[in-house]
């Protein structure tokens, strides 16, 4: 028995030693290459003014490069024969669109718009120290309120659109405000309440849509979807129907960009934003400084919800590709836009302007999804690559912040080697004497 155990142990040891040897070899090779690249890039790095935002941007870019590289390696492993076509299609993004790149571009922007809103909602909450994971619920409620006004409020005439948008914002505000209230008054963690509020929003909205009155007025029984909103309530195409026709893109992309700019100004330039951020950084010190920290938490969550709600409202009010409106289908699954907002907010280090760009990037990659399917990959390969990029964005931020130290470490290694060589020489000489 003992013999068998020992031999087993020995084999394990031998294999482990072998793996370690191989790993070491490749690790050395890798560090050597990394060192070469690092030494080339270091002088440029020194020249760059290192503020927080440049670090964040460089971190995100580095993450994207590393993430794409790993993703491509993964694609080669999964499907060696189709990998070359797959990689090409991945990098081409919306250019894959068979109806033409312009339509592809418009579609990509249209799909990115709601995610910009939820990303902004989550980023805003992050900046004020809160993790609003309930953007989906707020999005759904905003969408629902806007749908009701858009379908039933035909008496509003030309005001129907703006009332529907404001109604959606109010609905989202309320849905964010409630978890904020529990956080402020009873210290219930906002992650738990806001997750629960996703489900509450989903089932309450679906329940209400099945109620006798709404069922006949708002829902199309045959498709189990809401009917399209009135013409007057639909978002304007702006100049996109001539510029990017048939792509479904409307002016809500501008509203999204405008929201990002407003949020950036509020957070960085105003007393109000300073106070919200202060509460996020240190709730107690903000209270001590005279900020009503409970009010701040409730408002932060409310505003975050309001942005998500705005996204929901603009989604349902969108005229869509065939100018038929975008219906909501009554299903028992949470709307994914709320969760798609989390990675884009993280990739942008919660900077509102950054959220616009990170969302566009993610949407670009995602728009390649269908084309890659025909190259023999599953649709989810895109999700995997985005997840990898997200993981690396956390590493990359740390790496860019410590690049100086890494360089120093290399220098020390070199120096140490020299030192030890010199001492060896000295010893030899001493021996000779």
């Amino acid at each position: 028995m003992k013999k068998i155990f020992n031999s087993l142990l020995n084999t394990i040891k031998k294999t482990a030693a072998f793996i370690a040897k191989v790993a070491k070899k490749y690790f050395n090779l890798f560090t050597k290459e990394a060192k070469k690249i690092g030494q080339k890039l270091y002088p440029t790095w020194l020249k760059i003014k290192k503020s927080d935002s440049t670090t964040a941007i460089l971190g995100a870019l580095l993450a994207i490069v590393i993430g794409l590289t790993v993703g491509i390696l993964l694609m080669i492993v999964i499907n060696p024969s189709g990998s070359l076509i797959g990689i090409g299609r991945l990098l081409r993004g919306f250019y894959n669109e068979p109806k033409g790149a312009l339509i592809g571009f418009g579609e990509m922007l249209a799909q990115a718009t709601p995610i910009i809103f939820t990303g902004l909602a989550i980023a805003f909450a992050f900046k004020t120290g809160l993790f609003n994971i309930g953007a989906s619920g707020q999005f759904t409620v905003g969408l629902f309120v806007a749908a009701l006004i858009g379908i039933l409020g035909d008496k509003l005439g030309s005001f129907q659109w703006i009332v529907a948008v404001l109604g959606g914002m109010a609905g989202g505000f309320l849905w964010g405000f409630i978890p904020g209230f529990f956080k402020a008054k009873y210290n219930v963690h906002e992650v738990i309440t806001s997750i629960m509020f996703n489900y509450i929003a989903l089932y309450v909205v679906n329940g209400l849509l099945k109620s006798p009155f709404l069922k006949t007025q708002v829902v199309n029984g045959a498709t189990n979807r809401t009917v399209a909103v009135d013409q007057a309530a639909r978002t304007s195409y702006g100049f996109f129907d001539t510029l990017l026709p048939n792509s479904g893109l409307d002016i809500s992309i501008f509203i999204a960009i405008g929201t990002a700019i407003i949020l950036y100004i509020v957070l960085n330039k105003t007393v109000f934003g300073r106070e919200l951020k202060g509460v996020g950084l240190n709730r107690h010190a903000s209270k001590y400084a005279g900020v009503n920290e409970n009010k701040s938490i409730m408002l932060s969550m409310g505003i975050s919800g309001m942005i998500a709600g705005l996204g929901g409202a603009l989604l349902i009010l969108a005229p869509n590709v065939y100018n038929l409106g975008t219906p909501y289908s009554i299903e028992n699954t949470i709307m994914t836009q709320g969760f798609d907002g989390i990675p884009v907010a993280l990739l942008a280090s919660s900077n509102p302007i950054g959220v616009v760009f990170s969302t566009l990037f993610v949407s670009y990659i995602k728009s390649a999804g269908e084309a890659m399917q025909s190259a023999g990959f599953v649709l989810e390969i895109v999700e995997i690559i985005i997840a990898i990029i997200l993981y690396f964005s956390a590493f990359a931020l740390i790496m860019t912040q410590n690049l100086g130290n890494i360089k120093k470490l290399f220098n020390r290694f070199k120096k140490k080697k020299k030192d030890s060589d010199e001492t060896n020489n000295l010893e030899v000489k001493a021996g000779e004497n």
Partner: protein
Amino acid sequence: MQNIIEMRNITKQFPGIKANDSVNFELRKGEIHALLGENGAGKSTLMSILFGIYLPTSGQIFKNGSPISIESPNDANEFGIGMVHQHFKLVEVFTILDNIIMGVEPNKAGFIKRNQAKKEIKELCKLYDLSVDLDSRVQDVSVNMQQRTEILKMLYRHNDILIFDEPTAVLTPQEIEQLMNTMMYLKKEGKSIIFITHKLDEIMQVCDRVTVLRRGKVIGTVETKNTTKEDLSRMMVGRDVIFNIEKKPQQLGDVVLEVNNLTVVSERTKKNVVDNVSFRVRQGEIVCIAGVDGNGQSELGLVLSGLIKANDGQIILDNNDVTHKSIRFRNDNGMSHIPEDRHKHGLILDDSLANNLALKKYHLNPFQKHGFIQKKSIVDLARNLIEGFDVRSGEGYKSKAKNLSGGNQQKAIIAREINKNSSLLLSIQTVRGLDVGAVEFAHNKIIAERDKGKAVLMISFELDEVMNVSDRILVMYEGRIVKNVLTKDIDVEELGLYMAGVKEDIVYPDKLSEPKQKEEANNEKNI
């Protein structure tokens, strides 16, 4: 005697600041060597280099004459160097035994041999007279025992060079005595000790030699027996430090703060932690609330500043009844407050120094216009305060507050609060963690406020501070004020009796009308 550790020409450059500037430090075998210096003088940095937390920019470390390179705490450990940090590095939910053996568990095929470890540790305990309860969880034992756990951690790893980073800051006088004894035991067994402290008395008591650092440079190394407290403080600060402060005769003015029958009920124990307290503070006087920690002073400070609510009674500030007013109202209407907990309340650690210096002002003109922050005004304010109060930091007003040393953080808070120019300065544990030079500086600033006609209410647990700075003392015991006396009319011994609850002059009986008369009488006497 032989040098066990030599640090030669150690320089450590941080962004914007040279924390150590070609420092030479020698530790002999079997000595207790004190490392003394002002806040931010570079003591902690030097020890962090020795312990492998930082890599030096240049310089070399020698052990027993041969050069060594320490790149991580694990390396330090291999060279026999151990450290007790100011904030302990223990796993709260592990038992003391598991904490001690963590990382060096005696094991057989991966299974921990706890009994063997226990036996070894018990022998160590016996040898050095350290008593710990090995099976208790760290979170359940006293700070004192946690510190002994840290010491045992070093001993269990057979470290013979022991670094103590301000170990006495968290201990009571009796516990300090005990620690000093332990250090003497360790020395007798041949261990070499580096002892970082601000407290000159402790150095004179146990140390063999002292190395003094100032602004990152070594000022000198002296034998304790050939030096005095005054000499050491001069070396440390670079000038004579006056331990007894001269004050101008006081000019009393109007009542600024009036507290009537203030009561705070503890949520946990349902007891009155502040019990029917009444007093007044006038312009031009420093009133100090003295007492042993935990007699309701902290709660009194919190309720006056508005951080907790009063259950009963009245607070009148500049003829405004602020009892139920918000903190911002108090801040904007005559209250400055140096808080007890500087990390929790005093600063937003992750924010810049400039924003922290403007923490109570950014909502006022000229720091905002129409709701927009005026960055330039804030930066100007910060520059002025940093210069006027000598707040040292790596990157000036842009530094994150968390990157300042503790003393400089406190200076920043003092600067902010004095700059507010309020009629009342409420200052709680003003000088905790400050070196003698900074203490003197802070006290002078506070006395200058009094001379300008401000009312100052201090809460302090340190008798030296109480006796040196205040004009009038209120002694607090179990939530009540048991003595109201002019500082010149009382000595430390008598004060101690009141603080311990042995003696009591009930200043204010229950009826509201009487304390006013008595207070008036008192104040007349004061004038």
